[in-house]
């Protein structure tokens, strides 16, 4: 076995798999903030629109046998003028579509993204809907512009996971990602070595980045 195919075959029957997760949603709903909370457990009140870190990874242990690693892609703003590249959702295993519960229009935008994903992305992509900035409503209930019941009804109908979150207080952030991890096909992924050319026959790892617990394939990769 080569490279990231190591996934799933750790000694003692432990399972490990890596999945690509993409974020979508209107500008300023808190996509990057959710990721920052999830990956670094930080929050920044004066965050600028995404530049810089748009690729992060985070690992969740579902139980002491099962580890899921998310390779998280943030949009980098290319969607602002409807210019998101197909590469972005290519092979995404899961997506978090975010809206701001204090902005009704942001839910419409989220619904449009869900449609787009269902049209363009993997057929079995797992999508979660996140109504973010729940903390604002906890302070001032009249700020709410989307009711929980409405969003929940839509999520059920469209077959989406649903959480109201706050990147600021961390409410439901871990829960959101954990729920996604639980729905992912870990068994299959660890067998197929998803998201890794270096694990496919003939795949090459140009950067030759050695990651812990992983080996780089020799010439030509293995024939598994």
């Amino acid at each position, binding site marked *: 076995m080569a490279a990231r195919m190591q996934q799933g075959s750790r000694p003692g029957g432990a399972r490990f798999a890596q999945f690509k997760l993409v974020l979508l949603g209107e*500008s300023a709903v808190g996509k990057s903030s959710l990721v920052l909370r999830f*990956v670094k457990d930080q929050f920044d009140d004066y965050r600028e629109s*995404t*530049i*810089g*870190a*748009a*690729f*992060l*990874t*985070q*690992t969740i242990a579902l139980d002491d046998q099962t580890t899921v690693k998310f390779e998280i892609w943030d949009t*980098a*703003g*290319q969607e*602002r*003028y*409807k*210019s998101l*590249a*197909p*590469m*972005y959702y*290519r092979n995404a295993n899961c997506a978090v579509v975010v809206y701001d519960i204090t902005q009704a229009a942001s839910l419409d935008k989220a619904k449009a993204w869900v449609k787009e994903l269902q049209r*363009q992305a993997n057929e079995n992509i797992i999508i979660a809907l996140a109504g973010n900035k729940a903390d604002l409503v906890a302070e001032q209930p009249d700020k709410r512009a989307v009711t929980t019941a409405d969003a929940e009804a839509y999520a059920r109908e469209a077959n989406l996971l649903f959480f109201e979150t706050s990147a600021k207080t961390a409410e439901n952030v871990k829960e959101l990602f954990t729920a996604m991890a639980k729905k992912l096909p870990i068994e299959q992924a660890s067998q197929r070595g998803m998201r*890794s*050319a*270096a694990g*496919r*026959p*003939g*795949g*090459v*790892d*140009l*950067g030759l980045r050695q990651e812990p617990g992983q080996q780089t394939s020799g*010439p*030509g*990769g293995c024939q598994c």
Partner: protein
Amino acid sequence: MDEIAPEYDVVVLGTGLTECILSGVLSVKGSKVLHMDRNDHYGGEAASVNIEALFRKYNNFQPGTEPWKKYGRANDWNIDLVPKLLMSNGELTNILVSTDVTRYIEFKLVAGSYVQQGNGAKATVAKVPSDASEALRSPLMGLFEKRRAKNFLQWVGNFDEANPSTHNGMNLSQTTMKQVYDKYGLEETTRDFIGHSMALYPTDDYIEKKGMAKDCVERIRLYVNSMARYGKSPYIYPLYGLGELPQGFARLSAIYGGTYMLNTNIDEVKYDESGKVTGIRATMKERGEEGEGMKFETKCKKILADPSYFQGKAKVTGHMLKAICILNHPLDKTENADSLQLIIPQSQVGRKHDIYVAVVSSAHNVCPKGYYIAIVSTIAETEANHHLELQPGLDRLGKIEETFMGPPIPIYEPLEDGSKDNIFLSRSYDATSHFETMTEDVRDIYRRAQGEELVVEKLKSGEGLVSEE
């Protein structure tokens, strides 16, 4: 929608690979970049398209019919409009690694590199020998010639510019390649496969040029070193097609603050009294969108563009001929390779320009299982009957399910270096089968536009671009 900024350092027009690499690099280095394309997709003329889009682009069907339906889900196809491969040790690979764009794109080896000797039914198709010991086993040469070729390749392999004892008494910057071949006593047919399938020259112009020996030896070394990197062939190719490359660099640019707008037409380019560019007026409007679209204006200090945006500032240097073919079988005499490049050197088929055949398949996720996409290309040498010029390549394909062949494609080159108006144009993709000349163009444009050499090695800042756990 957010406002467009009132001013950018650089406006880039066209999302071909050359432009996207430049946008990516400039953004990483801190320039404020606005990047636009009149099309609704990334990649311009070098995009990868699905099979329905390909039928439509070439208008290869009767109205009312939908011939693409028999090829499965249209989106399972990613068919390159320009056939090229990456050398695994080449400059594009270097740029991909230096910028960490390898995070977004996965690569796979191309299974084989072949060359044709002879013509018609009697032609030999054989693996390009990749080093001295393979030369000894190659069916391309007779017994004595093999030894001579082995000596030559050994010399090339050991060549070190800094060490005169490896030069075998020649000053390569003064020598012609003919003199070098003569010195090793190589036959014409051997010169042919070395010059065309290892040094990858598309014509024989290099042979008699004084000082070209150095270039040729470097090219052969690139081939040999690329081959040595992963074995099998010196070429790699991205999963999902070449169209992933411009998208990867566009993402890099966007991550560093580059603004992206597809579906955008340039209405006016503004200049000051001295003739230097000062800004643009443009309209973003999706196909089928109602109304005027979004009109805007912004200032800029310079424009980088592909020649299609400034046709008056470019000249046509030749025409490329190309046929994209869908097959349901691998190529004969290639050991069922799932991907390959086959070069038919010009002299073997009585031409001045080589014919290239590039084949990719489901192994690179560009089509459903069981299909192969072969692109035959060359430079036009006649005014009409262009399919005849491609015929020796088409002959190698066996039964063809579909052929997509348009009119000859003009190859543009900028008329000026851009210093007068601060508009810096790229060249069209040339006929070469790899990206080495494209990366030379990237360096050339960068030098012209920024007044310094492009150094990619330090771009991987680590901080900022990527953070892990």
